[in-house]
């Protein structure tokens, strides 16, 4: 099965061949590297920019104003913070011009911890991204969702922030992308660039990819359950699934794990129904815990499900420190890991009503 990085590449290939994408760009996005995580290897329209995030966002915005469908990358979301004014402009352009100038751009960026990234390669961006009006924000956790959501993001007439969890970038999926060869080795031979100088003349050979997309705005129930609702996204999705499995096996507690996939506009119906059903809510993410997007979810769900709630809703998020420290001793305790997630689920499930 394709990895998340390969899924991005496949979707961008569909974008540039069938959906009008003319530019995929960012720092080291073009040849020879094809992105620091290889997500843009072999693409026909990928090119390297100056080291200037303001220029990257601005140029993508300008291309979109001219009616093109650019996909730009910020190499790590940790380096997006000098462009928030431009992101806000891109988000208000359609609205302020009364619909005259929609901004069909995609901005992609890897997020989160998990690679010993220390202070500047471990950031989350969900709080600020969801706080900028006018943007759609997606954050898939599997290769298939990545593929389908990237295609939807390209098609969308609005600016879409395409975040992806760097910890999972080389994980292979369990679901096949429509059109992908059965053998992952075959896929690799087709679309992974060789290392070294042989790369220079290499061209990828792309599989035939039938139309497919995953609509922005729909969450995914990864694991149905009865006793509590766990909302999560990104790196912590597989951890929540594992914790739920363990909880069920060891104590018969059944947690419903929902991968939000789209942070904005999120799937209100699914999370509302689940919270009403279970009456217990845990939100898990990695961003720092003060003014955290999970707090928005908790606020809205508390407002709408107050009388169904049997225990205080809980947020398990990143510690409110200025960064994730390099030492694993520090990283491990700064952002949720399996054990902490398991413990939090258990606690929410066990709290007396």
């Amino acid at each position, binding site marked *: 099965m394709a990895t998340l990085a390969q899924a991005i590449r496949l979707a961008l290939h569909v974008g540039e061949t069938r959906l009008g994408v003319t530019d995929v760009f960012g720092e080291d996005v073009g040849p020879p590297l094809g992105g620091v995580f290889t997500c843009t290897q072999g693409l026909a329209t990928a090119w390297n920019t100056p080291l200037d995030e303001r220029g990257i966002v601005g140029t993508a915005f300008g291309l979109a104003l*001219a009616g093109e469908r650019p996909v730009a990358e910020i190499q790590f979301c940790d380096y997006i913070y000098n462009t928030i*004014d431009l992101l806000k402009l891109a988000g208000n352009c359609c609205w302020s011009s*009364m619909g005259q100038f929609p901004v069909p751009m995609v901005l992609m960026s890897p997020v989160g911890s998990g690679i010993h990234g220390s202070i500047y390669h471990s950031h989350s961006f969900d709080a600020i991204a969801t706080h900028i009006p006018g943007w759609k924000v997606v954050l898939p956790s599997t290769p298939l969702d990545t593929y389908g959501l990237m295609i939807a993001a390209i098609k969308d007439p*609005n600016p879409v922030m395409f975040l992806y969890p760097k910890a999972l970038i080389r994980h292979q999926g369990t679901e096949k992308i429509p059109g992908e060869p059965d053998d992952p080795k075959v896929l690799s031979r087709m679309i992974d660039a060789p290392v070294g100088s042989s790369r220079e003349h290499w061209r990828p050979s792309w599989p035939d990819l039938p139309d497919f997309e995953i609509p922005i705005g729909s969450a995914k129930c990864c694991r149905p359950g009865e006793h509590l609702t766990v909302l999560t996204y990104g790196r912590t999705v597989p951890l929540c699934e594992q914790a739920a499995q363990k909880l069920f096996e060891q104590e018969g507690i059944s947690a419903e794990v929902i991968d939000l996939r789209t942070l904005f506009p999120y799937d209100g119906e699914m999370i509302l129904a689940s919270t009403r059903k279970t009456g217990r809510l845990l939100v898990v993410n990695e961003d720092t815990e003060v003014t955290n997007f999970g707090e928005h979810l908790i606020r809205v769900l508390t407002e709408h499900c107050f009388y169904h709630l049997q225990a205080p809703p809980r947020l398990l998020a990143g510690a409110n420190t200025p960064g994730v420290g390099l030492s694993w001793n520090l990283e491990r305790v700064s952002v949720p890991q399996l054990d902490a997630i398991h413990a939090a689920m258990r606690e929410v499930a066990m709290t007396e009503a």
Partner: protein
Amino acid sequence: MSDVHGSAQVQARRSAQMDVRQVYRLMAKARALEERMIRMTRSNDGYFWIGGPGEEAFNVPLGLLIKRGQGPAFDYLHHHYRSSAILVAMGLPLIDAIRQMAQRATDPNSGGRNFVNHFAKREWNVVPGASTIETQYSIAPGTALAQARHGGNGITIVNGGDAGSSEGDFATCLNWSSRPGRELPMLILIMNNNWGISTPFESVHGDRIIARRAEAFGIRWGTVNGNDPVASWRKLVEVMAYVRKERKPYCLEAYVSRLHGHSSSSGAGRVQEPDCLEMFGRDLVEREILTAAEIESIQAEYEREAMDALLQARQEPEPDGDTIYDHTFAGGTPGWPPLHKPFV
């Protein structure tokens, strides 16, 4: 492009001949518009004014020389809030600025949402003006890149103030427009009026000639007396031809006046600086191209047009409170979170 302005504009660009009468009339028209809008802050017809009296001698030639239309075959304009004369020369009906000044629902730029002189006009490639100083310089390379690929002779024009060039966006613009072998067809303008609100140019700029910053990037550059419409016309004809043909950037700094101070926040009173309209008028009278009486009647004509526009705009409604979410997203508003009703 059947309207008078549109054809004048096409004409101007084709011939590269300056019709001084036409330029004078448009300068007077733009000025009348701004003066009416300033008065609107005092008559309670608008909350806030910021605009371009003092930039007409440069902006009218520019507006006439722009290749107006929609899409990459035509010129894109990324403007700052002193650009009304460009738009007027392009053919903007005065009422469309006045509607924005009076925050009317009929304001075609922003539906009463944005400050005056923040234009947005898709059919003319006038991309939305924003209050954030200098950001347009980081965005403009995008439309120019689309044009570079498209071919033809459409170019991207970006303007902004002298103080604003201190933002990193100005450097971004120079850098992104001059990538070797991938130069962009951009006219990069600096409208130097010697002030950023209350801060004099010379107190914060070691770069005595801002445009010269382009030199290190291999970008051609120049300066022009933007109070002189003839010099401005000539320079613009020359450099726009270069950008259109060579598909490379040019950086031009125009020295202009700021005739009513920064904005209505500082009173918008008339200040003592060279007035391009007066000077040009005097010159045309001396050269017997116009008579003093003609000048007066031109002024009266546009004052009337602006006043009529205001009277009309006053009849028009302000936007409805329940439209605040409209156009947040192209293609419709998402259902979640459930938008709270606009407050009553």
